[in-house]
């Protein structure tokens, strides 16, 4: 009886210790990307010459827009607009009713390709814009000027290489 009691106490102690030790722990992270590759999207620092031609009034303008469509079994809704804002910057805007499947690691990409496939490839005309901050609602992202003329906007799951949503952009006259 005493031995059984001791075994029970030992077993309880093991269980309680195990449960106490299993309080939520933050995961560690190891970066496997090749050295020197750092995300520099939106942080270009090319020096250029400047000639002051006097103040110029900038007119905001919509350049192109399109509807989001989900790829495969993923869903997407809302519109994307490529525009010049009041400060003269080229921006990508997501509409108030924008929504997309909540996948891990989503990125906005501009591309000349109808299909990105498994990875973003700048040599094939893909321009990575930014990580998608929210999977729904209105958002605005600055984009390079050279991206403004590309015909497709994408939401792409970069870690797992999956096409999530695509919008075909039509020029706005």
């Amino acid at each position: 009886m005493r031995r059984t009691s001791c075994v029970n106490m030992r077993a309880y102690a093991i269980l309680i210790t195990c449960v106490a030790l299993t309080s939520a722990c933050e995961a560690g992270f190891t970066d496997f990307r090749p050295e020197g590759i750092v995300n520099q999207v939106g942080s270009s620092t090319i020096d250029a010459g400047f000639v002051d031609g006097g103040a110029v009034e900038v007119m905001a303008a919509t350049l192109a827009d399109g509807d989001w469509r989900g790829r495969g079994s993923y869903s997407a809704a809302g519109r994307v607009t490529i525009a010049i804002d009041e400060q003269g910057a080229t921006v990508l805007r997501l509409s108030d009713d924008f929504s997309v499947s909540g996948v891990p690691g989503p990125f906005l990409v501009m591309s000349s390709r109808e299909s990105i496939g498994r990875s973003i490839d700048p040599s094939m005309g893909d321009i990575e814009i930014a990580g998608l901050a929210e999977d729904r609602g209105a958002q605005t992202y600055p984009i390079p000027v050279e991206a403004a003329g590309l015909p497709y906007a994408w939401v792409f799951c970069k870690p797992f290489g999956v096409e999530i949503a695509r919008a075909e952009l039509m020029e706005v006259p």
Partner: protein
Amino acid sequence: MRASLFAAALVFVPSVAHAQAWTRDAGSAYVNLSLTRLSGDSLYNPDFTRSDLPTTFTQTLINTYAEVGVVDRWLTVTLSSELYRRNALDQQGATFGLGDTQVGFWSGVITAPFRLTLGVNVGLPTGDDTPDATDPTDVEAQSIARSLPTGDGEFDFEPAVYLGHGFGGDSWPLRHFVVAKLGYHVRTRGFRDAVNYKLELGTQVPVDFLDRFWLITRFYGTESFASDIEAANGATGLGNGVTYTSLGVELSGRITGGLSAGIGVDTAFRARSIIAAIPFRFSIAYEL
């Protein structure tokens, strides 16, 4: 004669079947430590199709499982915890740490002529469902880290029923046990509920030395009620909507006394929102 045959068969039921259908007497305990590894370069999409990954995904799990009899027949307590979970995407990054934990409470409602056990598993979110990169301001590194959670981030519970029966010997040259399980997985934090099921057959050759081994085959799975759209938020088997139907085989052998070891492999032939890969598992166990 029939009763003694049943009794003899039950004596030889391996520890792998305990706390599933066979509950433990007070003071009896069992602990198991396992290492599982899988590696794959394709993914089961939310619509059950398969797509190639741009890189290789590898997962390593060290899991512990323990069960203790508290009250003869009426209460067996179980603990299952992923002591270490590591998820890695080749040339991208990896996360690692403690995974999720389950505590179970089981009661042997019927013990003869077959086993009927009822109980509940309670899931504790001890893993990290939103891992951070070393530098969270690095957008790409952060997206990699967030795509590789070590836990599902939600409390859940699963009431379940197990049926078990041991048979064989005498006129039949082999001994067997069979276990069937049906559980309803109640999930939280917006995760859809699921039904979990399992059918398991163990076989033993009752000959000296060979009777140390059990060959176990199992058919099991989980069926989530999430729609394809709802199942799109993960790929590592921890997200909403994970569904799979799998076959597995395991060889368990008694080494000496209460010490045993096992080796197993599983494969899913229908799944969504998980990596398409074959997990290999090695385990060592001790029974008090």
